[in-house]
């Protein structure tokens, strides 16, 4: 076949990348907006002379965080442990069950109602029962965080496994692909965008689950997380310390969000529309 003269790959950089899509702009703009908001907050507190036990200034929160970091660190690590263990178990359980459900409709009929009940019942309503039934506080918190993180993984992965192109499925049948080949080469890659979307949601939810469950448990002692530090500070009207603990919770959430965005970019960036940044 001779050369066709069809349009091929778009010439990179043709016409230049729009300003809004440039990497430094995508980092600098949200950062500037955030710093601006902090400055406004600081100014309002100082100008209106708002007492620190009502609304501390960002500078005071930063100082409190620095001064109390030693005591907050073990709690932060504990919350991180609960969050990531719950997420890990949610991924393992959600993906495994999704595979079973996608391959067998009978299992779906039997198990999906339980998954839906777990999803639609607010964790804050189940948490007191779990804390009564499960003797270990850590295990109870883990279970609460797992419950909220599990369903997005399960639901998205099932949809993803079933979203494989029907013609590609036919092609695999035509070439007599084994079930393992079909799963590995077709179903799992097809499910990946859905799974990662579920992972992004579950990452945030596992943190929320860990914090909410600890609030409900009202845990005290050595093995406690940031929620307990927030509660403690609240009882003692140490509002800057409450904010300092809250900053650590927020930083954890932001880190999870950024990590999964990076994962999404790495896994899907070269082929999936959701990560397409280039000019069409």
């Amino acid at each position, binding site marked *: *076949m*001779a*050369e*066709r003269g*069809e*349009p*091929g*790959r*778009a010439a990179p950089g043709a016409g230049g990348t729009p300003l809004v899509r440039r990497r430094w702009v995508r980092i600098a703009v949200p950062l500037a907006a955030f710093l601006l908001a902090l400055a406004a907050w600081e100014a309002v507190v100082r100008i209106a002379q708002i007492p620190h036990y009502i609304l501390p200034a960002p500078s005071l929160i930063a100082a409190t965080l620095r001064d109390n970091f030693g005591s907050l660190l073990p709690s932060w690590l504990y919350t991180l442990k609960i969050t990531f263990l719950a997420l890990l178990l949610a991924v393992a359980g959600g993906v495994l069950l999704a595979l079973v459900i996608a391959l067998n409709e009978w299992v779906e009929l039997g198990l999906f109602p339980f998954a839906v009940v777990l999803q639609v019942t607010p964790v804050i309503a189940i948490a007191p029962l779990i804390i009564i039934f499960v003797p270990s506080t850590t295990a109870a918190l883990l279970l609460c965080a797992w419950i909220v993180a599990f369903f997005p993984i399960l639901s998205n992965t099932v949809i993803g496994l079933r979203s494989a*192109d029907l*013609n*590609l499925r*036919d*092609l*695999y*049948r*035509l*070439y*007599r*692909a084994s079930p393992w*080949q079909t799963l590995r*080469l*077709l179903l799992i*890659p097809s499910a*990946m965008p859905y799974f990662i979307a579920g992972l992004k949601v579950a990452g945030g939810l596992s943190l929320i689950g860990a914090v909410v469950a600890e609030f409900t448990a009202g845990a005290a002692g050595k093995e406690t997380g940031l929620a307990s530090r927030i509660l403690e500070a609240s009882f003692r009207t140490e509002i800057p310390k409450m904010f300092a603990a809250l900053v650590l919770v927020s930083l954890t959430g932001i880190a999870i969000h950024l990590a999964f965005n990076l994962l999404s970019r790495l896994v899907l960036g*070269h*082929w*999936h529309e959701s990560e*397409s940044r280039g000019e069409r």
Partner: protein
Amino acid sequence: MDTLLELADVGKRYGNGTLAVQSLSLAIGEHEFVSFLGPSGCGKSTVLRLIAGLSPVSQGTITWRGGAPHRDAHALGFVFQEPTLMPWATVFDNVWLPLRLAGRPRAAARAGVAAALANVGLAEFAGAYPRELSGGMKMRVSIARTMVSRPRLLLLDEPFAALDEMTRFRLNDDTLALWQAQRFTALFVTHSVYEAVYLSKRIVVMAARPGRMLADIHVDEPYPRQAGWRATARYNALCVQVSQALQAASAAQADAGAGHG
């Protein structure tokens, strides 16, 4: 000419009661280029799916050469209306797929994949992803993937329907060049009278509701056929003949509709 496969009184009724194909009997010879032409819903694509074994027949039999009821997995290739590429895989990996599923490692398949890509003019695009290609190039990759396993029978289900006229003409020529070079049998589904006449040795005209064969027209024009043939009186006369058969098919469909109404 040896018969490659034979359809005897083949029918297909779907679960919802729709009779997609009724009593189709047809012998396909080795190295033939047969087009299935007809209005939408006449069962053209269903016939391909029945032959490919992607859908079971409701009545009748499909017999392969030598009376074998089953076919070798790689004796058959299927090109869909869409390129149907795996977007997460490179052009190389897409074309490697049939060999990979047959257990051929990447290194052992490299030469075959490179040759298949060279045949469709995409040798330098092995590392590209489908999203980086134009519609015509994607369809070429799809054809290369089908041809890499050297099928004896190639089923093409309106492969060029979504492409612009110029790309379609080029791919018509490319398909004919591959067919002549590799001597496979081609079954080609199309809506286009002009495409069917240009490509085919035989044109099976079908009517809808239920899908059935109305005419089996032989195109006695030697190959290779060049683009200039499209401007000849002979080509035009054949197009008129096939168009009339297609109109008869549409009329038969209207009658069937009125009868049911």
